[in-house]
Every structure is written in structure tokens, then in C-alpha cells.
């Protein structure tokens, strides 16, 4: 007896579905062409390195998987008989395939976190205090119990952020969005009962998220607890860098400048450093402090150019703190206001 064709395989090529196949193939070709065009248009400056791309993709997958699993588990508690949900794995794949995960703010956050980690790990270590324990360990033993507890929390948070199995931290708004996307992907057609279960589950997952999980939250609490006096700030800034605690460096600057953590992180991570030098001048930092900070960041970040920094140092020092503060003033405005200004001015400049 002849063996018949594999029925599943045959159905993929049914005459009635050939049109769909052609259309799908065409869509793929268009997407590829568009991708290639976008890729070619990118200048070397804005192109991500393979390492950053890889780490961002890995973090995003882990994050989405964790959230989808949490939502599913909660939904099954709400509706023990279970819903018509599909297999768990296709849910994650589906989210990746559709553009549901394309979110500039999320991408920006993940890239910033990955960059911060890479630069942190590459910062040159200087044992300024000789054989004394490192900055965070010393702070965790400070007589001020608030400082000690906050320093300990930073040590713990740093440890969590370092282990690959920990999902990344997100702002409330980004987290909300991802939870609802995961819930939507777990739907199984029109099933009001299951939808209600998913909605409840998403709300439970959101309620369990606390503000303490925000990126940089622990470091910000420590910076607030220390509340460094102007005379203490230079040593703290330098020691946080030589201790490879870039998050704490950002938090200390953020607290001193009165500018949001995310904004300062952006300033610290950008390779030209223009806004960072201005910020440091606004805080009336001395030449040696700015030189040390610049040198450390140049050593840790291959995109920076130590020679042009050395070249510019005298001009940077010539800026009066008052002028620097004026130039930086817009940074302390609320984020939404700043974004609106950027959008308007960006459109006018084009």
C-alpha cells in the first residue's frame, strides 16, 4: 500500500491557502527590506554593539516570560478550572513576533541598564582607602542607622541586578504596560470568564509590584540618607566610581542636582559627556575632581575619547557655576514637560 502524504504537511500547502502563503512571504520580504534599509541608515554612533543587543534581548525575554508566568499563575488561581489559554511558550513567541514589545521607553530603559552594567564592570578600581573596606561596606556600618540600612539595601539590590536570573527593574508605567500586554497575549478568543480572570490576575500582579523595585530606587534612598554636604560630595562621587558603583554615582549626582535619576543616568552614560561636565560645574566641582571622573569614565567606555576630554578640560573649568546652573535648569523640570518641549523644538529644528 502506498504511503499517503503527511496530512498536516499537506494542509499547509492546500490550494485554498496558497494565497495566504504568498501574502505572508511577501510581508516577510517587505519586513526584511525595511529592516535592511533601517540598518543601513544607522550611523555608527547610534548603532548598538552586539553585546548590548544580546543583553537587551536576553533581559527582555526573561522579563516577559516572568511576567506572563506570574499572570497565568494568578489567573489559574482565580479560575481553577483553567481557561482556554494556549501553551505558555507560544505566548512569549507571539509577543516577540508581533510588535507588542516595541516600546521606545522600554528599549531606552533596557539599553541604559545594560550600558550602565557594562561601564560599571569596566571602571578602573582605585583602592583609595588602602586596606579599608569598600565604600558601600563602610556605609553599611555607619553609625547613622538610616544610612547603614540604605547602604545594605544597595548591596543587596546590586547583587540581584547582577545575577542573570533576576528580571530587570522597570518604572511603574512600563511595568503596567507589559503586564497588560502579557494578559492580552494569554487570552484565548472570546471567553468573558477567562478575560475577567486575566484582568484580576493582572491587577494582582500589579499590586504586588512596589516602588522599591524601580531602577535606581535603592541608590536614590542611600543618596538621600547621606544627603552629602558640598564638601563631602567630591570624595563620595570619586569613591563610588572607583568602587564600580555607577548607580550610586548617578544617585549622588541626582540628589545633589535635584534632577531625576533617569535623566542623570542618561547624562552620565552619553559618551560626549557635555551635559555631565556642565552638571559638575553647576555643582562647583574642582578641576581635579572633574578630571578624575572624566578619566574613569573614558577608561571604562570605549566610545569616549580621553584626548578630546583633556583638550576641553580648561574650557570646562572656565564656565562659571552660575552659568552652568542656568544651562542645566531645564533638566530639573518635570519629565513630561521636558519631553513636550523636546518634541516641539525637535519638530521646529527639522
Amino acid at each position: 500500500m502506498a504511503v499517503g502524504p503527511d496530512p498536516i504537511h499537506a494542509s499547509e500547502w492546500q490550494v485554498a491557502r496558497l494565497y495566504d502563503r504568498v501574502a505572508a512571504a511577501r510581508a516577510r520580504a517587505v519586513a526584511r527590506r525595511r529592516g535592511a534599509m533601517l540598518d543601513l541608515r544607522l550611523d555608527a554612533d547610534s548603532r548598538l554593539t552586539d553585546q548590548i543587543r544580546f543583553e537587551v534581548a536576553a533581559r527582555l525575554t526573561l522579563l516577559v516570560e516572568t511576567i506572563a508566568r506570574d499572570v497565568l499563575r494568578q489567573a489559574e488561581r482565580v479560575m481553577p478550572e483553567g481557561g482556554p489559554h494556549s501553551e505558555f511558550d507560544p505566548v512569549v513567541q507571539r509577543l516577540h513576533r508581533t510588535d507588542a514589545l516595541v516600546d521606545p521607553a522600554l528599549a531606552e530603559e533596557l539599553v541604559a541598564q545594560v550600558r550602565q552594567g557594562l561601564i560599571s564592570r569596566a571602571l578602573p578600581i582605585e583602592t583609595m582607602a588602602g586596606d579599608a573596606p569598600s565604600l558601600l561596606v563602610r556605609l553599611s556600618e555607619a553609625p547613622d542607622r538610616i544610612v547603614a540600612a540604605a547602604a545594605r539595601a544597595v548591596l543587596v539590590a546590586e547583587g540581584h541586578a547582577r545575577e542573570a536570573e533576576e528580571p530587570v527593574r522597570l518604572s511603574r508605567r512600563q511595568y503596567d504596560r507589559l503586564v497588560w500586554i502579557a494578559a492580552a497575549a494569554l487570552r484565548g478568543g472570546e471567553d468573558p470568564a477567562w478575560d475577567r480572570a486575566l484582568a484580576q490576575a493582572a491587577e494582582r500582579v500589579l499590586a504586588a509590584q512596589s516602588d522599591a523595585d524601580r531602577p535606581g530606587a535603592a541608590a536614590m534612598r542611600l543618596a538621600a540618607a547621606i544627603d552629602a554636604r558640598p564638601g563631602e560630595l567630591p570624595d563620595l562621587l570619586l569613591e563610588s566610581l572607583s568602587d564600580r558603583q555607577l548607580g550610586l554615582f548617578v544617585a549622588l549626582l541626582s540628589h545633589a542636582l535635584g534632577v531625576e535619576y533617569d535623566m542623570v543616568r542618561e547624562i552620565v552614560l552619553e559618551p560626549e559627556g557635555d551635559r555631565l561636565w556642565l552638571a559638575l560645574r553647576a555643582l562647583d566641582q574642582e578641576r581635579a575632581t572633574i578630571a578624575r571622573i572624566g578619566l574613569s569614565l573614558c577608561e571604562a567606555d570605549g566610545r569616549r575619547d580621553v584626548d578630546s576630554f583633556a583638550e576641553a578640560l580648561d574650557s570646562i573649568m572656565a564656565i562659571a557655576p552660575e552659568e552652568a546652573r542656568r544651562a542645566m535648569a531645564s533638566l530639573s523640570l518635570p519629565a513630561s514637560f521636558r519631553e513636550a518641549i523636546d518634541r516641539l523644538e525637535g519638530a521646529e529644528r527639522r
Partner: protein
Amino acid sequence: MTSMDSPGESMVARAILDAGDHILSADPPIELLHMRAGGGVSDRLAIAPIARVARLARRLGIAVSRQVVVADDEGDLDLWIQARPETGQIRLSVSGWRDRAAWKPAATPPDHTGMGADFRWEADAALRLTFVSPGAGLRHGFDAQAMLGRPLNALFVFDSGTAPLGDGAPLDGRGARLRPTDAPVRLSAAIRHDGMGGIAGLVGAAYLIDEPVEDDEDLALHPGSAPLTESFTAGLDRALRTPLARIVANADSIAARSDGPIAAEYADYANDIADAGRHLIGLVDNLVELQAIEQPDFRLAATPIDLADVARRAAGLLGVRADAAGVTICRPGMGEGMPAIGDFGRCLQILINLIGNAIRYSPRGEEVVVTVERDGEWALVGVTDRGKGIAPEDQTRIFEKFERVDPSEPGGNGLGLYIARRLARAMGGDLGVESVPGEGATFLFRLRSRS
């Protein structure tokens, strides 16, 4: 072999530069480097990487510390530079003075990245814990968070009772116990350096181990004493040779950039991978051979051969390597013959090993001399180098398994001479060495002669 009169790693050499980078004063090691880099007495500092650090320190107005690699006559030196600006001058201190090691198995760093580790940890310069894998406590019965900031020995009790770093060496598989649970662990850690090469902390990994049973411990400590069975080496051969060959081939094609341009450092990594792979393939070859020749009834073919001819061929095969090393091989003349009884292929193998070693240990510009002579009933081949020689107490050791003439030397796996001697003896001959330290060494391979 050090490529210069190495001042030793702990030494700090100093120099002072004027505002134009001219040397005002310099300790001999820095002066020597300066001259080797083509600098004259009143010239600017000619050692480019150090001059760069000095200029940067002057422009920034702060002390700059950096690790640099300086090319020396025969190799590269790893140096820690600190340049400190002071009243228009630059004060340089240079430490490290390490020859940059070529790839060698002995230099394998401990697995501090924690591949397969049960948990990872880090400590600062004061040996206070700054990181412990967050999940570790739950899995192994201690409070990982409470350990942060505490001394390393709050978490680990070291077997020998001494603290790590006592000898300034990284931990590599050191035995210890978890203090909270008394569970035995092995610890690996790499030292983290600060800008001046000082110790800035440890990056480590911990591997939980089962309570050792006496016999197990013995076996683990002396892997060389484990018998090599035929099935084991056959398995080793199968399991390793094919994947290794693939790794080497792929690494070579990455290094050759055959799929398009890549950054030079990645090409270098690929070269390292290929070198390490080739080394392992050589080791597999030798282990498989070892299994065969260690059988008590191992014997080799006894056929008439011409040892002088074998020696000429071996020298010819190594001609390219000798050229690359700047060494000349003097081989027996074409007219010379030395009839002997043995196995042609194995004799060639022995002589390739001996001449290859001689090239490796010869200083550039020297000769390796291969001679044949007759000594009564023996046919002798001598391979003489002008290297640093072998101390009398080492002359027995180098023929043992996994021993090296110079363990600090790259290349080789410590099986070559052992196998060569076993082969010589299996043909009824022998292999020995005569050497005066400082004056080179002569390896003598003898076989029964044929009249």
C-alpha cells in the same frame, strides 16, 4: 626565559620627566626600555605607551594609573604605570615587569567566572564580602544578604587555617567549609587589581563538594595515578578529537576573517582558541599513545634502519619552525650513515620530539647540533642545544609523566620525553640527557647498531 634582565615583579622603577617629556632621571629598567625603543640620552621618552600616560597626567593635572603592554626586544612586558604631575614635572613609577605570557596551559586562570559554580562571591580589598549570589543562601542554608559587608571568613573557614591572599596568589580550587553549615566547598577566585597593580579584591566562585571518601580524595589529588585503560583512551579519542578539530578549524577561519572583517581583538581571541585547541589535540594524541606504550608487553618492530637518515629527515621537517625561531639546525652530512635496528616511524617521532625541544629552548641566533656516532654495539644520535641547560636534580624528573624541562615555558604538555624514552626502550635502546646548567643540553638517543 625572560627577555630582559627582569627586575622582578615586585620592583618599582621610577623616573622623572620634564615639561617636554625628556628624561631628567630614570632607574635602569626604564632607561633600558627607553634605549631599546630607540631613545637617546637627551631625547623625549621613547616608550610610547608610557609617554602617553605621562602626557595625559600632565594635561589632566591628576595622577593617572594604567596597565600597559610595552614591546621589548623578544617579547612584551606587562607594566603598571603611574604618572603623577608635580610642579611641571611628571613622576613615573613603573611596576609589574612581567613578561607577557604566550599561551600555555599552566597559565589557565581559575574559573572565577563561576561556570558550573554553586554560587559566586566577591570581596573588596579588606576581604569584606560585597557580593554573594542572591539565591545561594536559600539553596545552601545560610543568609546570603546578612553576609554582605562581613569578612570573607564569616562565610568560609579555610582548611589550612590561613586567610586567602596570604601569599598574594589567587585561590584555585582551595578547600574550605561554609561556616554556617560546615559543608565542604572548593573555592576559586581571581584577584582584582587596582590601577597600580595592587590588590583591590577577589572575584570568586564556590563549588559545593560531597564529603570526601578517603579513596576518592586520593584519586582526585593524583589523577596521574589513575590507570589509563584502553576503553578510556579510545573514548577520549572519540569524544575529544572530532569536536576539538572542529573548534580549531572554526577558530582558524574566524582568525583569518574569512567571513568578513572583525575587530582585531576578536581575531586574537580566535587565535588563542585555536592554539589552545591544538594543544589539547596534541594531548589527546599523547594520552592515546601513552595507553598503548604503558602495556607491559609493548614491543616495537625491529627492522634495519639508517639512524643518520632518520635524523636528517627529522631535522628537515623542523626546518620551518627553526627558521621562525631564528635557530639553525646542523644535521649529519648526506654521506653519513648509521645502521641500527628499530622502527623507522617511532625513531622519527623520537627525533622530532628531541629536535623540537632543542629549538624551543634555544636562544635566537644559536645552533641546534644533531650528530650521529657509533659507540661499540650502540648507534647514537645526539641532539645538542645552547639553551639554559637542565639542573642535575631535574635530569631524571623531565622523563617523567607530565613533567616539563621548564614548566613556565609555553607549549608542550609534559608527555613528549616520557613517551620518547618509553619508545626508545621498547626498541631495545634508551634515551638520556647530559647537561651543564647554563651551557645547554645534549639528549642522547641510542639503538642497537647493525654491522
